[in-house]
């Protein structure tokens, strides 16, 4: 019986983002009728039926579809990294950017915009600086031989503030008409330029990171008992912790380098998951992935639809997510938090 329930749950978790992606094919500023879109989908799936107009099929399969797929991957990565790090640091206020990956990536992107101003270099710099920032936090945390979790958090805070300062400096010296707007826009997060190439670039780090977190999710439960107890329960603390940090960093850096800095998801989606599914990471990890994916696809659709221009992601994630989170808290009376 329990076994069956589990299968139903997993099926739902996979179907939900797919439904969100499907719906987003129908939304956008270019006037396409539902019939047009069905025609495109039918034609590209089966190769039969009446051939759709070139512009129609381009909009659906080359613009809307990759954008929705990328959104779901980015949302899932950020949410699951946040979940993993919260468990690891035994702190529900930790987010996916805790160890400095976002600030590092932000600076890397700004640097690339100033120096080269082309997409591949922005991706590369954001990704590498994000990872470098976390590595730096980790080594600062290891100044004390034992790497207590609190030292890592402190290392993350220090590295984040240093990279924020560097980012401010980069903004200060950037060309205010050309580069500065690009930097500011990048820092607010966007999927506007999403293409299959973006998916190809970021798929590897994101799936590797998410996959590793999914596989070791039981160990995150045990690590959340604290170092002493986790060790006496048979866990190699250092190795397991490094694995979780590396996986979360890979997933977040992969997401941030193509989508910019998307706030809020890595902190609050895990909490919505905790309210819905409880705190056992065996269920919470897949639930966070699915929720993060759905949430970002929905937010991106809103950003494309509600105004003439594109509204950056970070603005909407908080504006839409905040009230929704409060509603959930009220509905569940705060879950089981005391």
């Amino acid at each position, binding site marked *: 019986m329990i076994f069956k329930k589990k299968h139903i749950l997993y099926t739902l978790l996979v179907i939900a983002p797919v439904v969100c992606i499907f719906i987003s094919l129908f939304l956008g500023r270019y006037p396409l009728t539902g019939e047009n879109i069905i025609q495109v989908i039918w034609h590209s799936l089966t190769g039969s039926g009446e051939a759709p107009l070139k512009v129609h099929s381009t909009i659906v399969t080359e613009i809307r579809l990759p954008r929705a797929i990328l959104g779901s991957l980015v949302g899932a990565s950020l949410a699951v990294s946040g979940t993993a790090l919260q468990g690891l640091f035994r702190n529900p206020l930790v987010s996916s950017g805790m160890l400095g990956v976002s600030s590092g990536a932000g600076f890397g992107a700004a640097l690339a915009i100033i120096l080269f101003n082309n997409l591949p270099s922005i991706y590369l710099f954001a990704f590498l600086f994000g990872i470098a920032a976390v590595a730096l936090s980790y080594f600062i945390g290891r100044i004390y031989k034992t790497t207590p979790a609190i030292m890592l958090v402190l290392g993350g805070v220090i590295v984040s503030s240093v990279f924020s300062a560097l980012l401010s400096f980069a903004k200060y010296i950037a060309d205010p008409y050309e580069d500065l707007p690009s930097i500011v826009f990048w820092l607010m997060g966007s999927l506007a330029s999403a293409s299959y190439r973006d998916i190809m670039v970021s798929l590897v780090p994101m799936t590797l990171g998410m996959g590793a977190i999914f596989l070791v999710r*039981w160990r995150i439960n045990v690590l959340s008992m604290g170092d*002493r107890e986790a060790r006496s*329960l048979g866990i190699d603390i250092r190795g397991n912790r490094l694995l979780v940090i590396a996986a979360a960093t890979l997933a977040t850096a992969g997401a941030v380098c193509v989508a910019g800095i998307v706030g809020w998801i890595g902190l609050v989606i895990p909490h919505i998951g905790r309210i819905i599914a409880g705190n056992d990471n065996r269920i919470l990890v897949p639930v966070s992935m699915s929720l993060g994916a759905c949430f970002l696809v929905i937010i991106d659709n809103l950003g494309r639809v509600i105004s003439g221009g594109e509204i950056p992601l970070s603005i909407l994630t908080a504006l839409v997510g905040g009230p929704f989170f409060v509603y959930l808290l009220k509905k569940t009376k705060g879950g089981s*938090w005391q």
Partner: protein
Amino acid sequence: MNAISIEKASFAYDDVPVFTDIDLAIKKGEIFCLFGPNGCGKTTLLNNILGILKPLTGKVSIEGRDVSMYHPRDLAKLMAYVPQTHEKTFPYRVCEVVLMGRTPYTTLFSSPGKEDYAISEAALAAAGISHLRDRIYTTLSGGETQLVMLARALAQEAPLIVMDEPASHLDFRHELLLLETIRDLVADKGLTIIITTHSPNHAFYFENHGLPVTIAVMHEKKILSTGPPAEILCEENMRKIFDVDSRVFSHAEKNENIMRYIVPLGTR
């Protein structure tokens, strides 16, 4: 072979020595009480036994092998740990916490399976808390939490359980309940239990119920003496360790063993 043997072990935090030249042998199937005043280094010695700290000199062996040579997974199959205080972060359910005792039997990428569920149910029953299994453990009292920690240790199925001041937050009834549970574990399952305690009457309790008990008194960075509680816990020793006048009473109830207990009279 002894369950644990400690040879000439010393430990210091930076330059401050905590204990020096300690020798101890803990036999299989006994209750070993580590007894001493606050701050005498009991917990540090326990950490050396658990492999969390490494002695500066000397060595600690479990089943004849140096503790630092074990992989944490193998050590956890031999020795379980019940912490003095457990800091709760996430509101897990009780059964989820107890299931974590099965971790040493999982591999890096696996989660506990069917058999592990059955074993943790049995552990809940042995600790007498089956009725709490679906409760959120952050809502439990200190005494109930202690029993959850004990159940988790039992789920580890280790022949050796280390408990750090297990009764320090417990009320009159829960304290006795815990002592009874430990008594049954040793008498029925033949487990070896290491327990640190402030309370001399805990050691007497086990001895009064006819269990093999050794008490080691830690005092001024050394083991002052080791032996059965009836010999070690005398009025003279209590004066020496705590600067307290006390009286040991004994009586025989319904022709059973002689029951001993100790009552403090006053500080000197």
